[in-house]
């Protein structure tokens, strides 16, 4: 395939030189000097040396022509590689790996279709501000622009969905570029980065060991908010009668969950979260109102509608959270804490913008507030709303198994540190509503992009991350819909091959259920292209893959099946045939007022 053939694999290039960042002991970064990239002889080896020096432990990817030199260099690397069935799965697995581990995920693909197949996963990471590095092969530099075999303008395609992307232009610099891209992905507001690697760049010889990696200048912002702004915000919070915290995904990304808990509890301020913020504050705490927004709890939406001081941390005020902007927290002075200045007053005007790291700014606020706001009546009001609008569902004898019951059964059977992944749709909403999340990095889902099919590859990535962290006893449960499962269930082959202990619960209603729900509510029940008149038997499909496959139709089968699947040492799939007519409630119609959430279909 090439004339600059890669080095014989026996030739471990790292033998002769300085510490390599842990070739065998799995302890990257324990070198004497700053990042211990070992000696290299090709661009590809430089790429891998940079990844090792950055602390990357696992890569998810799919082989292919233009990326082969990098894979060849991985052959003798300390970095584990998980071969996925499809590049989209590689991107989602890397994304979920990052969510669970707190380290940037890493995915690889070849040029052309390999790169374009990554696109959905990169866009997903971009929307959810997840740190991830994608490395894509590219045709040799001299062919670029000639429409060569498997050529795509990957940098052009991924420009709007990456934090930044790079076209590697030489073997001498490629390692530094990869190191910078890795660090940039987690600097400031995290997000995906990509390096496009022409095959000549990775094949060419170089002895240039990558230097210490750092994000580009100006991309690692000051973590502290302006002191005067903090004081002003503190006064506003002290003076509030109806203060409310809104903790977003940024709280979790900044490792600020403890600071958030301290802040809210110290001053007795009720808490609601966004969906990506699930787990930042324990949902079983009296102060917690769970998450707000389109399918959030009624009490969270009542509180966010009536608050007079909203302390929003690490959220970008997505439309699924705010509903119509005109009716969003319409009487609230807004304190907005975010690391990204561009999020301040983008969708909701910030009366008190606090630009900085969530953890640092929450600590600043906790220190600056002198008097607890007089919010006892407000706390009572919030508690009353919790009584008035509980998340409930009914289980009539003459209706099929309810999906919410399945979620609750899993929650009951597992520990608090269990990681939940999901696809997108009704099952995702039930998984977020009827499971009580108490810890950060236990809820792994596709929020901003809403990517059906995220669940199974995310479970793979989450399992690998937990295993890498030595937490092999933690359960990983994927709630999937039948539609979502069909999109990426080929990644089950990876779970079987890699012997990954994951449990996949398909809430099978033989519909694209959320679309069906909208069709019933807004399209006069015309079920165009949402009604699956035939579905594979997922339990048998699972068995064909080599996983444990179970099928459940009735309430009394749920607990035993859940137990069997969780006990099974390896991937298990339970095909739960649930009520196809069940709807996700409460619901704020798109663009509607959060306080006017519907609790019954006829209110939509």
């Amino acid at each position, binding site marked *: 395939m090439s004339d600059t053939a890669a080095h014989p694999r026996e030739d471990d290039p790292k033998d002769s030189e300085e510490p390599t960042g842990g070739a065998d002991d799995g302890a990257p970064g324990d070198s004497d000097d700053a990042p211990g990239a070992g000696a290299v002889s090709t661009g590809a080896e430089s790429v891998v040396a940079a990844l090792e020096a950055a602390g990357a432990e696992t890569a998810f990817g799919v082989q292919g022509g233009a990326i082969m030199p990098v894979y060849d260099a991985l052959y003798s690397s300390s970095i584990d590689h998980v071969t996925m069935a499809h590049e989209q799965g590689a991107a989602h697995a890397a994304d979920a790996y990052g969510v669970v581990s707190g380290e940037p995920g890493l995915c690889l693909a070849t040029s052309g279709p390999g790169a374009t197949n990554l696109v959905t996963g990169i866009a997903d990471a971009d929307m959810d501000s997840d740190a991830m590095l994608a490395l894509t092969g590219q045709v040799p530099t001299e062919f670029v622009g000639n429409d060569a075999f498997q050529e795509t303008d990957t940098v052009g395609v991924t*420009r709007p969905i990456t934090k930044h992307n790079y076209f590697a232009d030489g073997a001498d610099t490629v390692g530094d570029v990869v190191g910078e891209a890795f660090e940039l992905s987690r600097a400031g507001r995290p997000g995906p980065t990509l390096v496009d690697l022409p095959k000549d760049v990775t094949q060419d010889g170089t002895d240039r060991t990558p230097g210490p990696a750092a994000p580009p*200048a100006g991309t690692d912002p000051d973590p502290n908010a302006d002191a005067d702004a903090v004081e002003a915000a503190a006064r506003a919070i002290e003076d509030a009668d109806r203060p409310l915290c809104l903790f977003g995904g940024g709280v979790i990304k900044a490792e600020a969950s403890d600071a958030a808990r301290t802040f809210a509890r110290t001053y007795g301020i009720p808490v609601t979260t966004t969906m990506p913020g699930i787990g930042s504050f324990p949902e079983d705490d009296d102060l917690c109102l769970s998450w707000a927004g389109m399918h959030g709890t009624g009490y969270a939406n009542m509180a966010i509608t009536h608050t007079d001081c909203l302390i929003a941390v690490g959220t970008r005020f997505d439309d699924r959270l705010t509903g119509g902007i005109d009716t969003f927290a319409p009487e609230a002075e807004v304190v907005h804490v975010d690391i990204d200045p561009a999020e301040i007053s983008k969708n909701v005007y910030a009366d008190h913008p606090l630009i900085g790291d969530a953890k640092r700014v929450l600590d600043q606020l906790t220190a600056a507030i002198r008097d607890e706001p007089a919010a006892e009546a407000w706390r009572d009001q919030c508690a009353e709303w919790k009584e008035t*609008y509980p998340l*409930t569902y009914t289980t009539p004898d003459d209706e099929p198994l309810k999906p919410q019951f399945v979620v609750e059964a899993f929650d009951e059977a597992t520990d608090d540190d269990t990681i939940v992944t999901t696809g997108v749709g009704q099952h995702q909403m039930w998984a977020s509503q009827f499971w009580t999340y108490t810890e950060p990095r236990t809820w792994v889902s596709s929020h901003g992009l809403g990517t059906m099919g995220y669940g199974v590859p995310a479970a793979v990535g989450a399992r690998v991350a937990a295993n890498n962290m030595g937490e092999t006893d933690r359960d990983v449960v994927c709630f999937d819909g039948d539609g979502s499962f069909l999109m990426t269930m080929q990644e089950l082959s990876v779970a079987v091959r890699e012997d990954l202990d994951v449990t996949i619960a398909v809430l099978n209603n033989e519909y694209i259920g959320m679309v069906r729900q909208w069709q019933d509510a807004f399209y006069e029940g015309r079920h165009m292209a949402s009604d699956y008149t035939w579905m594979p038997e997922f339990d048998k499909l699972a068995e064909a893959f080599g996983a444990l496959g179970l099928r459940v139709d009735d309430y009394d089968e749920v607990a035993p099946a859940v137990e069997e699947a969780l006990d099974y040492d390896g991937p298990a799939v339970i095909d739960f045939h649930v009520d196809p007519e069940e709807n996700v409630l409460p619901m704020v119609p798109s663009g509607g007022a959060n*306080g006017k959430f519907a609790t*019954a279909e006829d209110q939509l």
Partner: protein
Amino acid sequence: MSGDSAAPEADPRPAPSEQPAPDERTHPEGRRNLEGIRIDPVVEAEHDSRRAVISALVEDEPGVLARVSGLVSRRQFNIESLTVGPTTVDGHSRITMVVEETDPGIDQIEKQMAKLKPVISVGEVSGDAVTAELVLLKVEADDPAAVHAVTEMYDGRTLDAGPRTITVQLTGGESRIDDALDAFRQFGILEIARTGQTALARGDTPTAPGEKPGTAGEPTTHDD
């Protein structure tokens, strides 16, 4: 298929359908406008859009123009013109954009541009900035003397005079260019090419925030 086994005990708490309906709840009076600002619903103030000149100092690297133009189109910013050219610092370019946006919109453009890695600094150029545009226009040459007179009047230059067409170069601020084009219209304008406005801040004020003069060969540096 279902109902073979007994359903679990009923939840004692109110079912969704038993909970107060939307019109049975209290709702606040307040409102926000489209920009997310709390407003008095009686006297709702909308921001008017205005013309602004934004100057950005950027690394002169492949794709930087695509990043900026992609950002503008993706986020639906209204842009009138965009020019790019070198600066006194080797490896830096200046991008000058004329936009028509509300104040929050202008703020967003600046903040989103600042997030692009090759953007070193960006800001709005103050209202009294020196702005100019270069225009080439080709008119019919039926009356060369009259074309020449108008060209003189607007301090233009004749770049090419043929038997059937005359090509003229004009420079100046927006209103001057508009006036000149009105005057040339009588001859029949055949083709026109405009660079769009470019701008420098007046006096000692740096055009892009923090900008400092450089000399050729100076290494590229970030200012923050």
